């Protein structure tokens, strides 16, 4: 009997280890296979039992459910996992294998389409590889949405004795966990993507800068790199070709700003994670001053499927200039939270009312913060906004890394605006004044508003303009998004008359 239980940290945080122990005790002969998570976090720990070659789900499982799950009598039976509405409605390109395979089995990986992309890339020239990525329409999934192929072209065209591929796995935005999920659930896809990037631009060395808050992801990635090296996917003459590519996992040290690419590079070099002015672009002067591709985990992890199924296949999904799939991370106060991968273009309302099933508390929806701590708070009036880079931008929002944090009607929007400024003050690298000083003044100004000072609203608005226009990177530059969106969409909570009336 084959039983599948996720080893994803969200599943473990909800008791997967205890469930595994109970299953093993109840049926010592059963083969328990650890996987990533399917992304239905409200059902975790989700146990899957293979019956006649079909995986049937049971969840959320607790240790006392073990015996009933094994004999099929459990009331937590969900039926075949692939037939669940949440799974059937997705277009899983990047996350196709996550939750399905044993993350550290290269055989499983290959049996589910792994390495096909790398093998194809090995038959192509660097320029052909870069062109394929351009044709796919892939854009930076970390949030900026910069066309990946153009970035690769710059590094490809540069002439240097050493070039690098750096994977930004410093996923610090609240409401985002797609990077963690793929690194824990399908690490070889990231490794393969980085190897293809290396072939494309002529880089032989890669680094994954992985945040220290993800100990499980660090352990899985580290092990996966060792296995890939042993299997000849990394190292000299990868897969028997004349090409070489190797990589290392580097641990961050708890600085949010290191998710910004230039501070990440400084940190990787062993310096303070201070933002660098651009130009020079990292593509020309990146890690140790060498041409460097810096891409987000999801961007790089999407590369293998582009080469496996072809650029046109990837480009056939999405809307406008947002091609391919968006890996929505539905989080916060929601009935059904988790990861949902679908073509760009799904509307905000569909995600929250339909997929997420409203709030976890059952109270009315109030706001959703899209794109992490630097993203705007959107009210219900924005529910028609389509999730595409330009389309969502036109509605005053940022898709960012596609994390959505939902709040019910108890949320204190002035408090959330204050938190955004406080967070910026804590995490500012200190290089530019609008961010370093502005964030501190922002907290003070919001406190003045809370005390009933009507003039402070104008000052806050002016301060936000200065931060937007004058900051060196997105931390100071985008902190005004949550602050101003809270002020614009929920003016009553900043209103002094309300304070006075109370």
């Amino acid at each position: 009997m084959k039983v599948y239980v996720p080893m994803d940290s969200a599943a473990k945080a909800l008791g997967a280890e205890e469930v595994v122990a109970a299953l093993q005790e109840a049926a010592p002969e059963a083969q328990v296979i650890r996987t990533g998570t399917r992304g239905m976090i409200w059902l975790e720990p989700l146990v899957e039992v293979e019956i006649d070659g079909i995986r049937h789900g049971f969840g959320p499982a607790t240790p006392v459910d073990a015996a009933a799950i094994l004999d099929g009598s459990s009331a937590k039976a969900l039926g075949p996992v692939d037939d669940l509405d949440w799974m059937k409605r997705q277009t899983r390109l990047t996350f196709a294998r996550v939750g399905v395979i044993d993350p550290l089995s290269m055989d499983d990986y290959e049996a589910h389409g792994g390495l096909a992309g790398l093998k194809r890339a090995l038959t192509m020239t660097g320029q052909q590889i870069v062109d394929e990525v351009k044709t796919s329409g892939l854009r930076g999934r970390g949030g900026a949405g910069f066309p990946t192929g153009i970035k690769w072209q710059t590094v490809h065209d540069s002439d240097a004795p050493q070039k690098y591929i750096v994977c930004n796995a410093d996923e610090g935005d609240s409401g985002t966990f797609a990077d963690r999920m793929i690194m824990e659930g399908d690490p070889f896809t990231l490794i393969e993507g980085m190897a293809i990037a290396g072939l494309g631009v002529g880089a032989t060395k890669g680094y994954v800068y992985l945040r220290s808050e993800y100990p499980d992801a660090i352990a899985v990635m580290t092990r996966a790199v060792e296995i890939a090296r042993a299997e000849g996917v990394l190292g000299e003459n990868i897969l028997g070709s004349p090409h070489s590519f190797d990589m290392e996992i580097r641990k961050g040290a708890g600085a949010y700003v290191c998710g910004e690419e230039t501070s990440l590079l400084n940190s990787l070099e062993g310096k303070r994670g201070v933002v660098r002015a651009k130009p020079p672009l990292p593509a020309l002067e990146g890690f140790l001053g060498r041409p460097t591709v810096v891409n987000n985990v999801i961007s790089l992890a999407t590369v293998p499927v582009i080469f496996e199924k072809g650029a046109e296949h990837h480009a056939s999904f999405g809307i406008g200039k947002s091609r391919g799939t968006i890996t929505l991370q539905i989080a916060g106060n929601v009935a059904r939270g988790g990861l949902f991968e679908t073509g760009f273009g799904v509307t905000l309302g569909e995600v929250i009312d339909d997929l997420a099933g409203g709030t976890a508390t059952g109270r009315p929806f109030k706001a959703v913060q899209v794109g992490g701590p630097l993203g705007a708070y959107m009210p219900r009036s924005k529910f028609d906004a389509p999730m595409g880079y330009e389309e969502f931008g036109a509605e005053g929002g940022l898709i960012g890394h596609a994390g959505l944090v939902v709040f019910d009607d108890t949320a204190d929007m002035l408090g959330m605006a204050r938190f955004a400024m406080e967070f910026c003050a804590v995490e500012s690298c200190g290089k530019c004044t609008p961010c370093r000083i502005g964030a501190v003044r922002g907290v003070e100004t919001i406190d003045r508003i809370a005390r009933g000072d009507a003039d402070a609203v104008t000052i806050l608005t002016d301060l936000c303009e200065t931060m937007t226009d004058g900051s060196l990177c997105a931390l100071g530059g985008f902190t005004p998004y949550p602050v101003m969106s809270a002020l614009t969409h929920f003016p009553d909570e900043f209103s002094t008359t309300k304070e006075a009336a109370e």
Partner: protein
Amino acid sequence: MQSAAPTPTEDEIAALIESNADLEGPLLPMLHALQESFGHIPRPAMQMIADRLNITKAELHGVISFYHDFREAPAGKHVLKICRAEACQAMGGNALAEETLAKLGLDWHGTTINGAVTVEPVYCLGLCACGPAAMMDDRCVGRVDRRRMDALLAEAGA
């Protein structure tokens, strides 16, 4: 687990410095290695790192103090990180944190008198669909309520 190890010897420190010295960008791996072994960056390591990497002690201090992770004094036996980020706030994270700190009589970064637990804020553990979240040493816990928090603290001996 961050355990209070005995005072490290110069040889032990030198070995950890040397084993990372040939990496590209060796400083963060070096500091992590020292902290993993000793629970903090031991003072005698400062001059040794500076000498090995040909940087000033001021530069080194700049790096260590920039990152939230590194500490120049040992933490408690266990480190409890409570998420303060938005997704956990949406599920009552603030109240949980305040209650926990009040119960222990601590402020953020404080250590219980018996040295069992240091409580620190963390901004996102990637458990945003099962908040509020916390992490005891390297073990993640989701949907933390009062009961789970009490169990965690009891287990850690707080």
